[in-house]
């Protein structure tokens, strides 16, 4: 998990150059993550990912969408350093994985399930990343992130006392407490009901508009991806690969009016068409 150089299989500087100039047209920030020709083949011969070209720049909100088995979660986990590729090269802030975790290069991950420690209070769960880093005094930071996700009154509650949506908020607060430079979210709202999901989408978007973290967001939902993202990356399955890269050049801040606008629906149609192609490809 901690090996850095192992992620770079066949360094290809030319490809990196292409990535820097070509892939991201909407954002002008410095590169946060780049994948060049990345592939992953399991020992049993299953090809999870092949020839993935992906560049994420600072301040972008990129959604990965695609049919089941397209490797979007696998790719996200590889970005998080969980599992390595078998081909191609990956770079984080233009360096290998060893540099991740230093100030200005922090990652945080939000899983599909809240993955909270059931024996610990909300406060204890949220402060975990700081504790693990050896920090003792955390009260202020806990207060700050809990306020961000609207759970300031639940510091002493146990996870079982919270609804699914609130547990997910705790999980997000735990990710935010390290002030991550790259936030990775793996279908974080997939298990929630539609109402809760819409509310969390709205809140997440507002937070993002205020703080402009770089986010990579895996989802099944076309609507969610268009509503949140500055870019939607459509992936296809068997073998998992990037099919299309669709910039969502919508104004910010977005709100309920955006959800009902015709341009929003235009983008949704566009992503849906691409997904349909991904399903048949």
């Amino acid at each position, binding site marked *: *998990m901690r090996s850095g150089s192992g992620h770079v299989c066949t360094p290809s500087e030319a490809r990196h150059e292409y990535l820097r100039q070509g892939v991201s047209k909407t954002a002008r920030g410095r590169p946060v993550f780049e994948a060049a020709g990345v592939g992953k083949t399991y020992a049993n011969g299953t090809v999870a990912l092949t020839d993935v070209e992906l560049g994420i720049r600072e301040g972008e909100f990129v959604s990965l969408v695609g049919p089941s088995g397209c490797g979007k979660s696998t790719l996200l986990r590889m970005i*998080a*350093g*969980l599992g390595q590729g078998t081909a191609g090269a990956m770079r984080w802030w233009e360096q290998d994985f060893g540099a991740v975790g230093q100030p200005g290069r922090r990652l945080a*991950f939000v899983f599909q399930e809240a*993955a909270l420690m059931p*024996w610990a209070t909300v406060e204890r769960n949220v402060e*975990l990343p700081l504790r*693990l880093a050896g920090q003792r005094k955390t009260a202020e930071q806990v207060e700050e992130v809990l306020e961000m996700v609207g759970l300031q009154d639940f510091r002493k509650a146990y*996870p079982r006392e919270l609804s699914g949506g609130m547990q997910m908020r705790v999980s997000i607060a735990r990710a935010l407490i390290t002030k991550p430079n790259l936030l990775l979210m793996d279908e974080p709202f997939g298990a929630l009901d539609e109402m809760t999901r819409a509310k969390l989408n709205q809140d997440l978007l507002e937070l993002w508009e205020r703080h402009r973290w770089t986010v990579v967001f895996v989802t099944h939902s076309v609507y969610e991806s268009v509503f949140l993202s500055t870019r939607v990356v459509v992936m296809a399955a068997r073998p998992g690969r990037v099919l299309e890269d669709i910039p969502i050049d919508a104004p910010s801040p977005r709100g309920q009016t955006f959800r009902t606008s015709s341009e929003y629906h235009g983008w949704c149609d566009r992503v849906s068409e691409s997904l349909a192609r991904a399903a048949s490809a």
Partner: protein
Amino acid sequence: MSARPLIENERFLRIAAPLGVGLLFLAIWQLIVTEAHIPAYLLPGPLAIFEALLANWQTLGLALLMTLKVTFLAFFVALVLGTAAALLFAQSKWLEMSLFPYAVMLQVTPIVAIAPLVIIWFKDLQVALVVCAVIIAIFPIISNTTLGLNSVNHNLNNLFDMYRASRWQKLLHLRIPSALPYFFGGLRISSGLALIGAVVAEFVAGTGGQGAGLAYQILQAGYNLQIPEMFAALMLLTLAGIALFGLMVALSNWALKNWHESALKQEN
């Protein structure tokens, strides 16, 4: 709440229902013994047993204390050594693979077969009894705690890796808390086994005198055909076992009360 009839109160039922069954059983038992004129040396009735208990209270009470002393000592040693072994196994798959079969060996070898050896090896009988009881009480603690330490939520495990938790941090903040419900499950089984181990070892040792426990009282009463006394001693053992189990359940509920399903009240 208070207006609800007693019969719907779960706490009341939890105590009253088994108690009622027990009393009914005792009544039928007494009835059969009295009506069929079964002699006390074959099957004494509950009343005769109770009388025997009162008459021999001093001897039996002292014997109970002795047996409990061995039980608690053995349980404590099993707890410490068992937990230590499980923590050791948790450190590496290699250690676990190479040592776990020997823990299983402790479990499957009949204590009655080893007890004579143990009693020969240890000069002090008390120590020998404790060793025997430890041998059979330790396995559930080792195996349950090991299972628990390895039953960590996959995503939480990934999370700890991502935040570069040290081995020690992971053990302390993730693996040990995850193992607690399993550990307490082990304690429940092990506490009963410690009592059984203490009694079996004493049966094998068969010595009386100052430090004699309940097993010796049972043996002695058996030789003398004092069947009511035998039953009285047996009853004390059973009660001690139940009390021990109850204590473990209470301990487990107290420790897990905030989070684990086993200790939570269902609210639906």
